């Protein structure tokens, strides 16, 4: 898919992409993990520092006028994603994998609860006769308690999914 580079930046950024995509495998191992973690604000500065450290040896071999270039990558991650570089792909895959694992986790819990109940009632018949506030247990669970549980699960999911997205947005925006 061919895309026109942004005006003003001519062909130069293209060389940059090549540079970056050649060296990004070593970075990629750390970067994509981040959106999954909860405590990111303190770790953000650490990550910056560690990246600076990892870049330090490379600075010595740069002899072109680029030595005056700022240390941070000037190339926004959004453009990496837009131009579908390997780095951009890694960012995208990390986001999708994080959200998919969250979804799968919720579905697994749901499957265990919902799939387990009939089996439980079948294997432990005495459980069916237990009464909760005068109501048979199967009715108390299936006609009452399970609904608030659904809402609680959904609320927790929404919170975590939005958090994941916020982390991804910070990660992508930070490189600007």
């Amino acid at each position, binding site marked *: 898919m061919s895309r026109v580079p942004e005006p003003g930046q001519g062909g130069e950024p293209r060389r940059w992409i090549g540079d970056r995509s050649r060296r990004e495998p070593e970075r990629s191992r750390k970067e994509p993990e981040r959106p999954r973690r909860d405590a990111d604000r303190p770790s953000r500065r650490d990550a910056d520092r560690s990246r600076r450290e990892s870049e330090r040896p490379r600075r010595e071999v740069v002899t072109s006028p680029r030595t005056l270039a700022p240390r941070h990558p000037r190339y926004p991650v959004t453009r990496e994603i837009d131009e579908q570089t390997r780095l951009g792909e890694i960012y995208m895959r990390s986001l999708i994998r994080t959200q998919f694992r969250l979804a799968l986790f919720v579905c697994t819990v749901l499957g265990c609860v919902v799939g387990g109940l009939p089996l439980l009632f079948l294997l432990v018949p005495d459980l069916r006769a237990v009464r909760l506030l005068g109501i048979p247990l199967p009715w108390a669970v*299936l006609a*009452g308690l*399970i609904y608030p549980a*659904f*809402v609680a699960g959904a609320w927790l999911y929404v919170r975590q999914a939005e958090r994941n997205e916020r982390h991804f947005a910070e990660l992508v925006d930070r490189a600007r």
Partner: protein
Amino acid sequence: MNTAYGMTAVVLVVLAAVLIGAFGIRLSRTTSDFYVASRTVSPLWNASAIGGEYLSAASFLGIAGLILTYGADMLWLPVGWTGGYLVLLVLVSAPLRRSGAYTLPDFAEARLESMAVRRMAGVLVVLIGWLYLMPQFQSAGLVLRAITGAPEWAGGLLVAAVVAVNVMSGGMRSITFVQAFQYWLKLTALAVPLIFLLLAWRGGGAPGLNARDAAVWALPLAGDREYGLYSTYSLILATFLGTMGLPHVLVRFYTNPDGRAARRTTLVVLSLLGAFYLLPAVYGALGRIYVPELEGSDTVVLALPGHLIGGVAGDLLTALVTAGAFAAFLSTSSGLTVSVAGVIGQDILKGGVRSFRAAAVLAVIVPLALAAAARSLPVADVVGLAFAVAASSFCPLLVLGIWWRRLTPAGAMAGLLAGGGLACLAVLMTIGGGPHSGLLGALLAQPAAWTVPIAFLVMVVVSLLTPSRIPPNVARTMVRLHTPETLDLDRGDWRPRSS
């Protein structure tokens, strides 16, 4: 039962629906308005509208009837119809909104870049829509006959006519207001009589179930139903996975401003549905105590107020329940008609407002004819079959399409054909030739447990066998589906054709 009260209730609901619909006429001017209400509807309105649209005759009348008949095993039906939204929330809601698709065929086209898949998805939307509409019209006939003694076709015709006019004149915007109104009406119409019923029940010494019912009916997997465990699991699978594949539900998600709002709307929907589904089980249990002779029919909700309370109060409460039932017929039928008409209008006719109107007529006439011709099954059972078809066709398409890059058009088509086709076959054999007995009967009456895995398997295997046909822009589509809208990214230039 006093006919005048019931008639008044029906007339009032129909009139309200038409008036609210007419209120929307001024607001809908362009084709886009007709389809998505310009995306200016707030989350609570939107969630109420989804709830109003979703709670059909099957929820309002059918569940209580089935619980009265079969007991605790049927409690899974409302659980699945609510839990389906949890699955929809985590797997589908935000990416689907971000895809920018109005309808399921739109999504198929956007994700797989294939008109053939789009057409096949369109055919399935129409089939599921008709299968879902048919029992709504049948129930409307049943209720109108019970209330006024009118012939059975009259109720269905009344609902079909109101829906067609409403959809043709107002489009989606008016439908959103009608639907939101209908949810609250339905909740009131079921909750208020229930309070009086429970008071009457306590006043009458709070009688319990008879000994045999307490030992068999009230316990899950206790009756002499053959293959009860299989049926329970199949029902769970169909309802949990089928919700995301219902055409009238997905259209609503486009009315959210962004993916985040889509998630939050789904959360509100879950709460609204959870509140509603607390009620039918109580009706079912009270019905088992007081009117066990209604076993096998859908009318227990209508019969209880008159039986337990009687007098003018009983008549008024029955009228309220009747109003709720008609709200259920009207709202679900409207939503389905919008979806089916949208597909027919865009993909079969030329598109545009005039085609949409012609398609709306077509969308209600076919199920109306089917309702007259087909044998009458419990409404919740037929709706359950529609869920099974949706679970074995659109669920794999959506889940794999959103989360798996290697899905190919060939794989999607093969999966839709295998899963949807087998499920449709089971439905035809159950409705047309059934009821069958033994294992075959159980497999055909609850097909989801085998058709859903087949659909997923076929979709994955055929996709893996055709790696060269992975859509070229899949990476861009994934950006579109999964990144928050606040980020300034290139999401491709695909637009739904209906805009």
